[in-house]
């Protein structure tokens, strides 16, 4: 930090350690990527191909032609998109209320949402299963959307509250002086301004719902099988086909990872804000 370090010194003390950390974080995933590009016979005979010369898309072609993986992606998409819509829809007005009003019970209600977020999945999963069975919802998209909403709603209420807090109150007041009602001020002034926050909250919900496994395993079934459950079924009966499995893992992880990379700057801003203040 003091003076101007020379280039070599910088490379030794900063770039190399940073590279080490990046490799540590990415290594296992890169290994899976290389495995997925290695043809099955080569994998069995020699092992993972490190040089791109012997790579092929064989595993991916088999994944698409011989398994129902694309259909599973469709189910995951429906569930994740449904959870995002439901989560955002009920959370926006709640977040606005928490941000703009001071009313009796505000703290208790806010804490209620925080508490809900901490409930162990394992506590909820059994009664939810019994409930869905009673309602005949097992193995439907609705069951998974509802189950995922148990995580998505409290989370987005908190995220959106902090985003709306960042919008000056004077804007609502100005809109109401101009004759808007509260709800009109929310819809015409606050919603457009909060849109970046709403979008990143939505992306976060989408990623968590896409990656969710235990609810999908327990409440899904033959008709609704999401990617996370399907990946596991790629494990063969007698022998694990690591090439195929890796291809499934890569494809299954791709949508969430890409979304995350696109939105990461804003997402991390929103996620860390609360913790840094606390």
């Amino acid at each position: 930090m003091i003076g101007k370090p020379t280039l070599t010194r910088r490379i030794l003390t900063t770039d190399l350690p940073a590279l080490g950390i990046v490799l540590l974080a990415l290594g296992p995933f890169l290994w899976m990527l290389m495995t997925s590009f290695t043809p099955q016979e080569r994998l069995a005979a020699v092992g993972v191909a490190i040089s791109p010369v012997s790579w092929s898309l064989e595993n991916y072609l088999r994944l698409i032609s011989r398994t129902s993986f694309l259909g599973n992606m469709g189910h995951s998409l429906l569930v994740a998109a449904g959870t995002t819509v439901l989560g955002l829809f009920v959370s926006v007005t709640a977040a606005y209320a928490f941000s703009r009003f001071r009313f009796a019970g505000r703290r208790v209600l806010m804490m209620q949402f925080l508490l809900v977020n901490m409930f162990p999945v394992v506590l909820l999963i059994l009664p939810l299963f019994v409930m869905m069975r009673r309602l005949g919802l097992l193995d439907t998209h609705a069951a998974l959307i509802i189950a995922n909403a148990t995580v998505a709603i409290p989370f987005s209420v908190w995220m959106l509250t902090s985003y709306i807090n960042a919008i000056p109150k004077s804007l609502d007041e100005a809109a109401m002086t101009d004759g808007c009602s509260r709800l009109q001020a929310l819809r015409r002034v606050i919603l457009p301004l909060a849109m970046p926050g709403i979008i990143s909250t939505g992306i976060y919900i989408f990623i968590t719902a896409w990656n969710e496994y235990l609810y999908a395993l327990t409440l899904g079934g033959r008709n609704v099988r999401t990617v996370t459950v399907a990946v596991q079924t790629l494990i063969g009966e007698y022998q694990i086909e690591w090439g195929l499995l890796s291809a499934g893992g890569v494809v299954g992880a791709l949508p969430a990872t890409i979304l995350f990379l696109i939105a990461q700057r804003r997402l991390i801003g929103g996620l860390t804000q609360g913790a840094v203040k606390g």
Partner: protein
Amino acid sequence: MSLTAALSDHAAPTRAWRKRLLPYGLLTPAVLVTVVIVFLPMIEAVVTSLYEFVLFRPNAARFVGLGNYIKLVQDPVFWITLKHTAIWIGLTVPLQMGLGLIAALILNRQFPWRGLARALVIIPWALPSVVIALMWRWIYDANTGVLNEILLRLSIIQSAIPWLADPDKALYAVVVTLTWQGFPFFAVMILAGLQGIPRSRYEAASIDGASAWRQFRHVTLPGIAGVLATAGLLRIIWVANSIDVIFVMTGGGPGYATQTLPLYAFVKARQNLDFGYGTTIAVMFTLLLGVVVAIYIARTSREVER
């Protein structure tokens, strides 16, 4: 301005009521949905734990009071899994925090590709747990896994080790995986905390002749203490709750070697369909975790009242 005030004065009583009820109205959908999908199931869980209830024999459900809880404390597996849960949290969270701190300190330095490095380091966070679990099973594989291959080449070990099949090593192998999965979260949180420390404090410290280590001890650590505490509490809750990675990696085995308390509840209900007892374990686990949750809520609660 005065015109609106006069108008609202006119219809004062109803207006005032509507104004006071508005926030509750805005909150109703979210609260209603959470009550139905979280609180009702939770109450049902507590009730179920008082019954002997096996899923495929719903008519044979029998009220046993605290019978399941008595059975639980006499169940040797309960104590084994409780011990594993303690080891599991006690190792994973500090390891994640330590590695996260190191990563954050490195990524907080100045170098040209810092933005790229930061984006790449958080990728494990975005990967599905199932994919992570399968990926590490492949790495740990006894015959063809890359970990054994590297260690054999470096002559650190003499023969391949079945990491996940060895009861003495399996739990630690899973801890390593979870550490890898969770350290980016700490790195990101700590980075945000580091950026909140004013530069002037470092300058003042270096004028006073403080060494790099002393600067770290007396400027950096106090500056990120709040973040470490919050992130640590959040992670304890998260790690304790996360059963998907272990479930896919080992299913709790070999034997009970990697069984944690929540996983035991899940497996009991899933495989034996013993919902009464499974729920009892889950409720017990929730009560134990409740202590940590209470601390976290109390911390955040102070923050909200503004």
